[in-house]
């Protein structure tokens, strides 16, 4: 195997029936020297945070609505300033755009900006859209996946750690890595 091939990263996915087995796999992977950022738990149902001993997911989602609200307010104000400048209505020196009458639209603009940025934030922080990596439809039926991204030379270590935690199956992009006798139905 060339040096460049051994440096290439690959994803393995272990499938487990029980949350305890998945947590055990995470511990074994950590023990084998894999970092927290390389390990992901995949499930069809949300589990309480820390159920698998995984790291606390840091995020900045709360910043997005504030940024969006500021942008939305700015756009709404600009729209009204534009209307004030552009409308050739004779109003005897009174403003075309009176403050009490525009508060509603400023408010809606602010809230719309906040919501849209929050949605962008959700997608960004969830790392979506994403080409699905190694995945198995059995996860939808309740199996729990433990995914690990490892350099090619460390793949055997990762596979051993995943299998020893009572894996139902271990998959790579090319298919199952477990021998047919070892893989549970």
């Amino acid at each position: 195997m060339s040096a460049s091939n051994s440096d290439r990263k690959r994803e393995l996915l272990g499938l487990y029936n029980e949350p305890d087995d998945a947590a055990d796999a995470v511990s074994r992977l950590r023990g084998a020297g894999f970092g927290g950022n390389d390990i992901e738990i995949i499930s069809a149902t949300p589990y309480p945070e820390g159920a698998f001993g995984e790291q606390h997911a840091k995020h900045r989602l709360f910043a997005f609505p504030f940024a969006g609200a500021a942008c939305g307010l700015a756009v709404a104000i600009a729209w009204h300033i534009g209307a004030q400048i552009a409308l050739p209505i004779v109003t005897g020196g009174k403003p075309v755009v009176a403050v009490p009458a525009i508060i509603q639209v400023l408010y809606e603009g602010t809230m719309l900006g906040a919501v849209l940025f929050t949605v962008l934030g959700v997608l960004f922080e969830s790392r979506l859209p994403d080409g699905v990596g190694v995945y198995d439809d059995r996860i939808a039926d309740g199996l729990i996946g433990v995914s690990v991204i490892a350099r090619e030379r460390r793949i055997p270590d990762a596979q051993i750690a995943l299998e020893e935690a009572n894996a139902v199956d271990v998959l790579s992009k090319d298919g199952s890595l477990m021998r047919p006798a070892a893989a549970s139905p």
Partner: protein
Amino acid sequence: MQEPVTVDRETANRELLDFVFSWPKWFFATTGLLGAVITLGLIIFLLLMIFGLQLFGYAHPVYWGFPVVNFVFWIGVSHAGIMVSAILRLAQAEWRRPVTRAAEVLTIFSLMTAMTFPIIHSGRPWRTLYWEFPYDWMRGIWPNPRSPLVWDPAAIFTYLTSTVMFVYIALLPDLALARDRVKNPIGKAVYGVLSLGFRGTTRQWRIQAIAGILLSALILPIFVSVHSIVSWDFAVTIIPGWHNTVFAPYFVIGAVHSGVSAVVTVMIVMRYAFGLKNFITKDHIDSLARLLIIVATVWLFFFMLDFMFGLYGTEPAEVDTWQRRLMEPPWTAIAIIFIITGYIIPVGAWLFRSVRRNFFLMFVTTVLVNIGMWLERYMIVIPGLERKSNLTFQYGDYLPSAAEFGIIAAQLALVIAGFLVFSKLLPIMPAADIKEGQILRDEIKVGRARVPATMREA
């Protein structure tokens, strides 16, 4: 909750996606019927564009009729989604899980339907464009930013966009589930694209939970603003019976009353039509009925305030309007029916546990509420306009025409068809949310009793 959802995950997946992947015969019959009614509505709309508003029963001085009444009504129904979904999500009420998606979807389609009524009301739909967009600068035609005609679309557009985004973000895990379960390669590709590659990593689930709470908190103020602004369509005028400071909270609570009732109606229909008996239980409608008792009573309080403020100032035009509403035919009969169906029968019945836990009686009472609430909007809109001002020389009564009834039927069909098609294409119950509830649920022993103990998510 005494009746937890206890089906295993495989059964939950199968039952929740069953309607998406199957084609029952009644689906074709129902969509065909709804399609025929919608087509009738489109024909009436076409005739309206050719012949104008003479097709409606307007008579001077009444130029606001069924379209405006229905606009307010459907905006009100649209408040169901956010009331049920966002408030219960923020309150972390466990029983919300099977209810939220249907409520949000009802919001989307009733809001989209409501948006069509101002366009129909104008009689010349293309003219509504320059109320909103300054496209005709050369002729000096401008939108008036001080007008409710600008506030309303701004609020409704914000609410609709936010609700669609809210539903879509919450749908991602279920779209991924549909992607994994569907056999058809085209379906797999479509669900795959829509799910954006959602896999269900711990990070994605955590962001989902936070997003649910964050978006709920953001949409709630929008929900309040939308119906407040709808009420200001009336309250910022000087029409007797409309010019009232209590209108905003009165409209909002009325919207919640009719909206949550509509959610109960829809849930009961879903339970039988989509085979969701394992997921929509007596506890759900019991909980919603208790909520409705409070909501209905607060709404009655605001109705009484509106009445009292109308009389307290002894303004002759205002007193005349109330006299017309309550003491003159046909308004007396309408007022009696609306109070009986909107409050007395349903709330009186919901005080009994046996009614709250009976699907048929809950269906009937919640339908009655919406009949009452529709009549309430009719009573708000029309009598205020039916008055002789100083310079009113021509005076007639408003009598809704067959065309208006046809449009109402078509719009109702549109909401039902929208809901049905959504349910056919996408899971109408949040499968991941329901299964999460099962994971987090456990029982603890207190003395000799075993009671449900639930860990909160997020």
